[in-house]
């Protein structure tokens, strides 16, 4: 998708989420009781993302993140955290289906060189869900013992 001849470098939505990011982690206390954590990316590529989720009744009730990266990386995690928590929270099976493309569309497009940022967002989320599921199965195993 091409973003040209506009009044900013990215779409309006990216700008909003970059300038005023939603749900970023201010303090570790905020994720007390959260039950899933994921991390992705590396410094070499210039993007690192962390995501905490709180799952209850199969739905994502809370989502917090931290991002080292460019405007589109920050906006990607910000909007993703909104997507998964809005309307009472997304079911985790639906959350697992979120693609970078959907994030990008919701952001109103990204320049070609920045598309990978949106992919990183859903990767971090998936890691967090995996972590949640692992913890759950651990719990079950324990209970079953």
């Amino acid at each position, binding site marked *: 998708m091409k973003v040209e001849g506009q009044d900013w470098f990215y779409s309006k939505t990216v700008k909003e989420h*970059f300038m005023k990011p939603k749900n970023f982690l201010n303090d570790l206390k905020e994720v007390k009781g959260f039950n899933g954590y994921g991390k992705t990316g590396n*410094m*070499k590529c210039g993007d690192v993302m962390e995501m905490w989720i709180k799952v209850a009744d199969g739905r994502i009730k809370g989502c917090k993140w931290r991002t*080292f990266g*460019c*405007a589109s990386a920050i906006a990607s995690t910000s909007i993703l955290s909104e997507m998964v928590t809005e309307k009472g929270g997304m079911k985790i099976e639906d959350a697992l289906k979120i693609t970078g493309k959907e994030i990008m569309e919701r952001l109103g497009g990204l320049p070609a*060189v920045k598309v990978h940022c949106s992919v990183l967002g859903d990767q971090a989320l998936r890691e967090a869900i995996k972590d949640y599921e692992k913890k759950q199965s651990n719990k079950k195993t324990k209970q079953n013992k």
Partner: protein
Amino acid sequence: MKKPKEIYLDYSATTPVREEVLKEALPYFSEKFGNPSSFHSRGLEAKNAIESARKRIAKILNCEAEEIIFCGSGTESINLAIKGIAFRELAKGKRGHFITQKTEHEAVLKTMDWLKRIGFEITYLNVDENGLIDLGELTRSIKEDTLLVSIMYANNEVGTIQPIKEIAEICHKKNTLLHTDACQASEYLDLNVKKLGADLMTLNGSKVYSFKGTGLLYKRKEIEIEALIHGGGQESGARSGTENVPGIVALAKALEIAEWEKKKEAKRITALRDYFIKRVEKEIPKAKLNGHRTKRLPNNVNFSFEGIEGESLILYMNEEGVRLSTGSACSSKSLDPSHVLTAMGIDHGTAHGSIRFSLGKETTKKELDFVIGKLKEKVEFLRRISPVWKKGKGVRKK
């Protein structure tokens, strides 16, 4: 503090055209508009304008007027210097060896890369952590068939000034030629080619408060080069095409003003630079100054703020009216961290967090104070949301 309308600290990317410069060039657009090659009064008027500009610039560079080749940008001048020599050899069915170094502007590096592809041999010298080349390595690298050494005068990202005079001496002792890219140096450093010893030197308009799309190559008259752009034979055959008369007049005026104000302005800007560096180092933790502390362009400041990514910081600062770059303007197109910082051995994470503050003629202490205030605020916020930053501890190395 009242928010200023705009603070431009990207003078190394490009400069606004000075009022006096535009004024001097303006008549050459629609009134004195002749083609310098035309054999009538309008043509003569245009020809006189460019020849007079050539002489005025020759005086600044301490060279002969005929040693100046006007062209369309710094990049073109660099390409002409390097390929001009390469193509001269190519036409004889020969190739040869070039030497450059790893923190050059893309105009040099990509030109060398391409020459490599068509069969020339290229040596890319290393730099130390300050961005300086090793003169011993240079000496050892010059071979029998070394056609040209191209080392920049001052670096556009980190401001490091290479010892051109010593480099020229080595080149000449070992019987080769030196080209230097002086695009960033022209506003503040000595451009006397005799003193510098450069055999070829590149300057451009966009960095000296003159027109974009203008540049020149100084070439010692004994040196033969092949043209990059063939045609009507303008610029003694070295660069064909109708001359950009207003652009040439503007370049002469701008270089003159720079020359007049050089000493005073370099002093003023150096003081501002050092004030800025000192305050940032004191007030922002883990801010790493990139480049040499003293062998540095008067107007260049380059910091890496650990734990954050440069683009985000630039865009936050932009929202406050502060115009900054991550370094080379071009690098914004690519995801790779700056080749300059990488060559200086700076790790990728730190390189990603680098910001260039390039000062200029309008820069004031008050502006810098405002910038520092905003910088602290934005760096702090970005570190807060950064997974790689640990308060009080800096970046976690994994």
